[in-house]
């Protein structure tokens, strides 16, 4: 077998699995050649972007070649008037935002670690932040993609226009597929204008019931925040609501929130720029710190039982625990240091059972090996698993793309 790249080192490992070789193609055609070569001699491949999300999923069953996307980092096209950008997968999200800013535009995806996370990794991991409340997640912002299949074939799906129903939606299938179906080569995103005004208002003290009730009351009061995120503080939560838009609208929305909170008997605190930045930085830290990280989902009306029966017991098994809740979306992120792996694993399993009862789930985004040994990062197999396997078998019949990383051992 010809060598495709340099030799792998422990620094290249995915969850302890060291690749035999590491390649960094400079163009998509080169990436396609690498994958075609791997197909010829049956080498297993995994893809790495910024490496911020490599602990998500299980360790690969085998790993011959690690393909880094770092050099696939061009902005292929930015059409400001059409509010779309075509970018290569290895471009860090933060860098993309910097390129868009002079045109007063942005990609409305705000996962933590945007400086390191690449757009391909964000899309492959379906990563998102609090702005999902208004703008949706990657699946709602991706309008097209080019990708390299396991057999080395470079293909595309979707298009460059926001409205398009020609053919099956392969790009949306690749969102969240964690590199197990194809290498994401370029992504065409729908962009949004940068808001003229941006204001964060804090409701400093709420319990879970208050959080759910206030989130529900937003709609009734015709409040349209772009983001709603709560951070754990001791027994309760601090809820931040972000309003973005034109100055008169943002001012009116903040006023309305004050009135609503007064009616409900909650204190409110408009944050100055500095305070707002600090809050969102704390939010990002809560989501990206800790040796164990988990994402909990639930129907948004089920916030109280999810907190009581899943989130709190899980946090109790962690040292230095932090948590962020997106109450309007029905998502919570927990993180911390598991003192006793057995206890942490039990807490994950019990939290899972509690969430599953309401149709939710718990995904472990990171965990020490001793915890991993005791729980599957994805939880019990989802109902569509056999169908998922059949789709996987069509696109990667030899199971060479990140084998074993995904749900149900896919």
């Amino acid at each position, binding site marked *: 077998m010809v060598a495709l790249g340099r030799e792998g080192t422990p620094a290249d490992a995915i969850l302890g699995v060291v690749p035999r070789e590491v390649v960094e193609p400079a163009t998509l055609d080169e990436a396609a050649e690498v994958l075609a070569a791997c197909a010829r001699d049956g080498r297993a491949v995994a893809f790495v972007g910024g490496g911020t999300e490599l602990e998500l999923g299980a360790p690969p069953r085998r790993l011959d070649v690690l393909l880094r996307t770092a050099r696939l980092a061009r902005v292929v096209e930015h059409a400001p008037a059409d509010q779309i950008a075509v970018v290569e997968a290895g471009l860090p999200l933060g860098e993309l935002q910097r390129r868009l800013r002079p045109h007063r535009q942005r990609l409305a995806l705000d996962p933590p670690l945007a400086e390191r996370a690449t757009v391909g990794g964000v899309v492959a991991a379906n990563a998102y932040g609090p702005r999902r409340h208004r703008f949706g997640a990657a699946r709602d912002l991706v309008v097209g993609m080019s990708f390299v299949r396991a057999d080395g074939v470079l293909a595309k799906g979707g298009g460059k226009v926001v*409205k398009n129903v020609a053919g099956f939606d392969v790009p949306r299938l690749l969102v969240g597929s964690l590199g197990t179906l194809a290498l994401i080569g370029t992504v065409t995103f729908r962009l949004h204008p940068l808001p003229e005004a941006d204001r964060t208002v804090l409701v400093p003290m709420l319990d879970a019931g208050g959080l759910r009730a206030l989130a529900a009351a937003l709609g009734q009061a015709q409040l349209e925040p772009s983001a709603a995120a709560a951070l754990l503080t001791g027994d309760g939560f601090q809820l931040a609501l972000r309003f973005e838009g034109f100055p*008169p609208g943002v001012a009116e929305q903040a006023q309305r929130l004050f009135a609503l909170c007064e009616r409900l008997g909650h204190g409110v605190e408009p944050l100055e720029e500095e305070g707002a930045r600090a809050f969102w930085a704390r939010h990002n830290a809560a989501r990206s710190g800790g040796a164990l990280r988990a994402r909990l989902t639930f129907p948004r*009306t089920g916030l109280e039982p999810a907190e009581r029966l899943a989130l709190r017991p899980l946090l109790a098994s962690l040292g230095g625990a932090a948590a962020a809740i997106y109450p309007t979306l029905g998502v919570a992120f927990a993180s911390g240091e598991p003192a006793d792996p057995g206890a942490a694993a039990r807490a994950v399993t019990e939290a899972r059972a509690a969430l599953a009862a309401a149709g939710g789930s718990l995904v472990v985004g990171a965990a020490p090996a001793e915890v991993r040994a005791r729980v599957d990062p994805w939880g019990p197999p989802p109902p569509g698993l056999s169908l998922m396997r059949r789709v996987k078998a069509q696109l990667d019949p030899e199971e060479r793309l990140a084998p074993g990383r995904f749900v149900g051992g896919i």
Partner: protein
Amino acid sequence: MVRPAVAPDLVHRMAAVVGAEHCISDPADLLVYECDGLTHGRTTPALVVLPATTDEVARVVKLASEAGLPIVPRGAGTGLSGGARPVPGCVVVGLSRMTRVLGVDLENGTIRVEPGVINLDVSRTVQAGGYYYAPDPSSQGVCTVGGNVAENSGGAHCLKYGFTVNHVLAARVVLDGGEVVDLGGPALDPPGYDLLAVLVGSEGMLGIATEVTLRLLRKPEATRTFFATFPSTDEAGAAVSGIIAAGILPAAIEMMDRLAIAAARAATGLDWPDVGAALLMDADGATAEVEHVSRRAVEIARAAGALEIRIPRDEAERQLMWKGRKCAFAAMGRISPNYLVEDGVIPRSEIARVLRDIGRLAEEAGLRVANVFHAGDGNLHPLVLYDARAPGEEERAAALGREILRLCVRYGGSITGEHGVGAEKAAAMADMFGPDDLETMARVRWGFDPRGRFNPGKVFPTPRLCGERPGPYQPHPLELAGQAERW
């Protein structure tokens, strides 16, 4: 068309599942199911069954699979790309009896329905609580949720709120062999591949949706509308670009050219002037934001060269303006004996240039083209006017329609923004996608439906059979009955 016979035994067994009165094999009764909204292409199905539950759908699909017959799912049959058109020897599975609302959960903002529920009935069911279902195809009074899911349908207000795919949270699907699978769920992002996103827009080729959970939105507090006229589509196009560039996301922004305005005027008696182009824009949301946004949009339209701006005094006047826009399609009959409708997408910054190119192509073909469309997302609906009695004109019109789609692709756009590929545009897929792209889509299909049981012959280009041709537009019976209007 010679109808391949179905084994009487199969008819019998199907009838045992759905009830004899819901199992249609009489040639005269089958005629109703020969086509969808695109009435020039017709094929008689072998059999039509109308199941009432997921279990019945599963059993019907199993029987058809075992007999080796193709299966064509069908909602209301309003599709405009021949998607629900039968294929020879097929079993049509009509979902029109599955019309139950299975659950409304306003606190979570969701509704669970059977696929035969009419789009507008979803909004009607929840309107008292201040909610609505956002995707609003103009056929919304008659088309079904199942059809919307299969076509990823849109409407004028999708610019701001997104298409069907952005509003479907879960679906129960019957696959080949009768296997039932649940995709999506009551909470976000269930672990695994997002197969639900693939199901939406799959044009009935992966399986049959028998239950769908939809996202509901709260009705916006305020809506502001204005109508602006321009000397030509150049200035109107510049106004659209200017509004978008100012960071404004209108709820809807629609454009009409001179011919379309004339037709609307003739049909409704509206006092619209004889001008080169007009825009109709809705902004919605919270009051202060909406007022600010619509004021700015009006200023931008003026700066772009608007001749006149009209702001409706009340809701009745607003509805009248929208009526003018909505009827522009049906109104074509006033200015032309026949017309065919295209559905293509272009980058919206290219509107003015593409419209000029279309004008040039029309001139070369010796035909007129009227344009009335969703300008905000560049979704064109060019209406090619012709006279079927004039020898050769129909063929020239069809050729012009195809040429316009190629133009859309050349400008980086799409061959369809909302009507789907179906049987009609399968050949045009090759203008947009290469063999590898198409093969990837086909692989996804084989994953769901390895034997190609569902709706075969659609979407994927195959060499055209002789005698098959894209035909002229003919009014859908629903339009003739005044129940739906076309955009």
